[in-house]
């Protein structure tokens, strides 16, 4: 069998007149993490639903572990572990009982299901709450238990739909660790996320999805380069001082742009010190000098061809900060 455990080719799925997935193609190999990155409504979840047999594609093919999702649903379901966007747990049962329930449903005997539940409780740091009913859990706890529930048995393919949405930073990191371990063990992992940082941390390859299409594809570094990397912004309110600064900086840096009272240039290592030094020697006092990475907003705006940097939000707000 091919090492490509997920093969999607020209996948399409519409809801009425809306093309949710409009010709998406990609592959995920064993031991690889591929991230689908995109805003809400981009078509990420619809793609996931097609791969997990919850939805039938209109056209195109999708194969999971070699099985066609449209015609070999039962085989596909035997090959995947899935964590959906919303924690799908039994509110009535305790965390431990949930894990045992899913273990039993997946064919484990009473003893192995219980042993596996305890193992996962330890792994996901759920010991304190394992005996409590899930309806008393916080959002973060639910997500953790939900992921644990999808890992009750080992599957060649793991599919995660926004696994860390609503998770605190500690739980998020713990989850990333688990995903990396599974990847190293040879699992093919497909995950969707709205966070650039998450894609950066986990995914070997990222597909930027917008309006049901793949807008860009590559390693996180390739994408960042494609998007122009970090930006240095120098804000000077005094027009005369700004003109002097523009002249000085323009002589050293290529592609300097002026946008109202802000001078903007591409930032590399050492850019900030160089800018500050140049301004100092020119005797210009800047009102503000910042270096920031492009935000997720800018990524999509640049890809959809309507960059409006003035509206760009703070780096951390988009989850792109470290």
């Amino acid at each position: 069998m091919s090492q490509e455990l997920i093969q999607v080719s020209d996948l399409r799925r519409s809801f009425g007149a809306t093309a949710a997935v409009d010709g998406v193609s990609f592959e995920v190999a064993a031991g690889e993490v591929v991230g689908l990155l995109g805003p809400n409504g981009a078509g990420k979840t619809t793609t996931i639903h097609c791969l997990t047999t919850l939805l039938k594609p209109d056209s195109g093919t999708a194969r999971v572990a070699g099985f066609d999702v449209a015609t070999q649903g039962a085989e596909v379901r035997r090959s995947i572990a899935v964590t959906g966007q919303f924690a799908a747990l039994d509110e009535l049962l305790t965390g431990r009982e949930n894990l045992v329930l899913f273990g039993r449903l997946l064919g484990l005997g009473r003893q192995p299901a219980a042993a596996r539940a305890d193992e996962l409780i330890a792994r996901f740091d759920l010991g304190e709450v394992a005996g409590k009913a899930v309806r008393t859990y916080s959002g973060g706890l639910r997500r953790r238990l939900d992921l644990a529930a999808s890992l009750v048995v080992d599957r060649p393919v793991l599919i995660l739909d926004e696994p860390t949405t609503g998770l605190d930073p500690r739980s998020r990191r713990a989850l990333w660790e688990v995903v990396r371990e599974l990847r190293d063990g040879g699992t093919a992992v497909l995950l969707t996320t709205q966070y650039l940082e998450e894609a950066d941390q986990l995914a070997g390859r990222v597909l930027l999805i917008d309006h049901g299409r793949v807008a860009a594809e590559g390693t996180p570094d390739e994408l960042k380069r494609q998007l122009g990397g970090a930006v240095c912004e120098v804000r000077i309110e005094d027009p005369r001082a700004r003109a002097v600064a523009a002249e000085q900086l323009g002589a050293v840096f290529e592609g300097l742009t002026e946008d109202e009272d802000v001078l903007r240039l591409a930032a590399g290592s050492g850019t900030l010190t160089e800018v500050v030094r140049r301004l100092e020697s020119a005797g210009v006092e800047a009102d503000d000098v910042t270096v920031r990475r492009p935000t997720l907003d800018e990524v999509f705006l640049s890809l959809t061809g309507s960059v409006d940097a003035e509206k760009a939000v703070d780096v951390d707000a988009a989850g792109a900060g470290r």
Partner: protein
Amino acid sequence: MSTTTAVAASGLRQFAVLAARNLRQARAGRSVGLTVVFPLTFFAGFMVVFQRLMSDYGIAYEQFLPPAIVVQTTALVAMSACYMIAGDARSGLISRYRTLPMSAVVVPLARLVVDAARAAVAVAVILIAAVLVGFRFTAGAAGAAGFVVLAVGFAVVLAAGCAALGLGARDPEQVYSALTLPYLVLTTVSTAFVPVDAFPGWLQPVVEVSPFSAQVDALRALSTEGADERVWPALVWLVVLGLLFGLAAARSFRRSR
């Protein structure tokens, strides 16, 4: 992390595991209590208001009414099945089941077996109350057994239809209240509370073909003269609706939208 190889889970085990879980859900929701309170209140009210009036027309209402109350109860059991399964659909649990290697019939069947148990308990409660006010099985034990089996069977068939609806619904409260109207129409426009000739002429054909009339008439036969030709329409309805709703429930679970 140790390696846990997935063995093919048998449908039977999945059924047993889910049925146990559903039973627990039913007990936690005190669902039997809720499904008998309304019919018992109804029973008491109707007895007080109509018993003397009906006896003027030669109808022993304490014998006439209980089968109707039983049908009312079984319909409520079915409606609460819809409520519970819609709740599971809303929480995402059903979607998770749908991504697991499970046969399409396991989830609906595990629902229905618990609904059968709930119906049996609810019917028993109603019958105890009925006997207290003078209801009797005059056709003996076989008739009584047939009565209970038919009543539970009707509850299961209705629950299958309701489960099909509930699986497609996202809001348990909404789908439950949407079912209230057909419930009221079907129970009142039938021979449940008054004989067919008490209805206006134009409505009588509707009353006569109603599956609820068939069910009530069959239960009345089984509690008085025993199994006679009045049981057949109920059995036909049971089989037809059973196939229809059973198929709908399985399809609704494995529906690829």
